[in-house]
């Protein structure tokens, strides 16, 4: 079941959600969800907590999110203009782009040579991290709460003390010939 409620009011939230959804797409939270394009059948970066992570002061991004939003919508408006896509005045320009156009724009912004590449790569990295490591939440708590990214990946749950242990770990038998020049210390000669 989709979790979370789309933010109908904030340009910043909707724009950054649309960016996060382009990085790791999810299912629409409601039929009216405009930020999430709906190109996946289950939760993506947005439901995994991308906005919460981006707004965590530890990332170093939080104070710059308004500027990111303005820049991204500026790029989106120019992209739409160059591609003959009509935008109306209602939604933020990046949110109005189709998933394919959002993807093409993110690809361009993160490509070698783009003058703002470093910022967009950093934004994308943290969107990824919200999904694949839930860096805004303590990991044992995230797993216990069924964090969608860690759950989808199959990240193993820790013991009650919060520490992970694997009892079984090895096939337990020789599986290859050793290199003939291996020394007695186990190193290459």
């Amino acid at each position, binding site marked *: 079941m989709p979790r979370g409620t789309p933010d109908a009011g904030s340009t910043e939230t909707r724009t950054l959600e649309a960016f996060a959804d382009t990085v790791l797409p999810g299912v629409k939270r409601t039929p009216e969800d405009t930020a999430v394009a709906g190109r996946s059948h289950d939760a993506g970066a947005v439901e995994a907590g991308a906005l919460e992570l981006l707004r965590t002061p530890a990332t170093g991004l939080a104070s710059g999110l308004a500027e990111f939003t303005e820049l991204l919508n500026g790029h989106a408006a120019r992209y739409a203009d160059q591609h003959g896509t009509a935008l109306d005045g209602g939604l933020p320009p990046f949110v109005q782009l189709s998933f394919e156009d959002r993807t093409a724009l993110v690809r361009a912004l993160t*490509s070698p040579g783009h003058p703002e590449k470093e910022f967009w790569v950093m934004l994308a990295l943290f969107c990824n*991290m919200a999904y694949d490591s839930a*860096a805004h939440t303590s990991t044992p708590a995230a797993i216990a709460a069924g964090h969608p990214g860690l759950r989808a*990946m199959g990240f193993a749950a820790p013991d009650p003390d919060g*520490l992970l242990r694997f009892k079984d770990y090895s096939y337990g038998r020789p599986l290859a010939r050793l290199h003939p020049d291996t020394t007695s*210390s186990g190193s290459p000669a």
Partner: protein
Amino acid sequence: MNTTEKTDVLIVGSGFGGAITAYHLAAGGARVTVLERGPWLETEELQHDFLLGSSYTRAFDFTVGDGMSVLGGNCVGGGSMVYFAALPRAPRFVFERKGSIGRRMWPSAITREALDPWYDRVAEAMGVRTQDWSDVSYAGGLWGAACDHSGRTANPVPVAIDKDACVNCNWMMAGCRFEAKKSLMFNYLPAAVSHGARIRPLHEVQRLERTDDGGYRVHYDVIDEDDYRVTTDSGVIEARIVVLAAGAGATPVILKRSESDLGTMPHAVGRYFSGNGERLNTAVVNEDRVRDVLGLSRDEERAYEAFQIGKGPCVANWDKLDGSLPEYSRYSLEQLYFPPALGTILAQVPGAPAPSWFGADKKEMLKRWKSWLIVFTMSEDDNEGVFGPLPPTGNAVRLSQQMLGRGPLTYRPTMNTLRGWERSDAEVKEILGKDGIADVAPWTNDLVGAYTVHPLASCRIGDDPHTSALDDRHELRGHPGVFVTDGSSVPGALTVNPAMTIAALAERAVPGIVDAARARGVDVTYGAPAPDGATSGRGGVLDPSGQRSS
């Protein structure tokens, strides 16, 4: 009246290069102070947690450069706290490499044979042991079986891990909560402290100045324990000898920043950086083929699905570590685990048009994370890295409170390096693609450049003053009394995990540092046993009368 703090030997950094020299010099009678820019993390503080601010982000730095990003330790114990404890010795041919300068780049005094007694000392101190196949994780076993299936050999790598204490949690990058991984916190560093060495965490050295008596004044900032962007204090310490071991990403920056007072640095300071030729491929394994082709199964249900289980790299293919092959075509292929985030973001979807590091297909790939296998290439690069304009403090402009920063390193891989990566990519694909075992794709270099966990050579030893910053005793050319003993002193890529070689070179450098200290009036001798009192390694470098072997 202010009294400037004084010490005999000031050591910058507490990783292998700092801890080893600190121990021997303190044990020999010198007053030793170690300044470490990262925090001091006790075992009970080490968490299995990706939360920003946990031990995972406190303990290491990810420094993004132009064309190369560097992952390195940032805590007491340095790289040893976050490493995977794989400690192979470098193959013989490595010491004969010519690299980008067209002639042997290692000092003539150093060969594998000459270094072996020093490797022995490290092996004794760290408790390095060979692994057998029963120690090897499922992922290592899978890699070994795949190598065997394609007619290749595969070796369990030598490690410093207590197998009885290890729970195969694969959280080594956040330090080892079970004290199974033998970091420097269990040998050299406590032994150094017991001999009176003082270790100060969160002290980031910025620059050196010369004193009137030929010693050095070391300027440091004190770093906030939570927000590394914040400086809370600063100070100076004077020393007769300075040992720089801040890591290959930081040592040259400190030296370049010191040029205004110390004078011109050797040309090779901040040049010839090597990323150890590192390259990563991620495979998504076909579980049915693992069972049917390789005959592997964990139980009735699962053939593999075990990427998360283990202890970093367990098994390596060393078939291309062949001295008869041409330079730049030799590499090892090592099975590896990287945790989510650092180990997932740069992975690309096999078979998808690049860039495929994000998007719907990448998300589907993440859902098969348990069936991933990472193969790590360590090849011969061309020492292409150069440090540019310095950041105001430290070795990077810190972007996040911890971990993430932007550094001054530029790296443009030459065709030699690129061909080595292409060859290894093709070989990984050949091994894992055979009979449909897995689909493979290399990590993208488009986002943060190439990616190394083993930065080397930015202040290297050598015989040639034009292409090496240090003489073969690790003393900085033109700046007597300054020594460098970290990974920056290694001349070039090693084709294997470098910690063992960095440590052996640091051990080898100690007698020369002792001599220099004695010449400056420090009452210090060489000849301490291993940190736990064992003496067999010492016997290999001292003759029966207690004199140093040549």
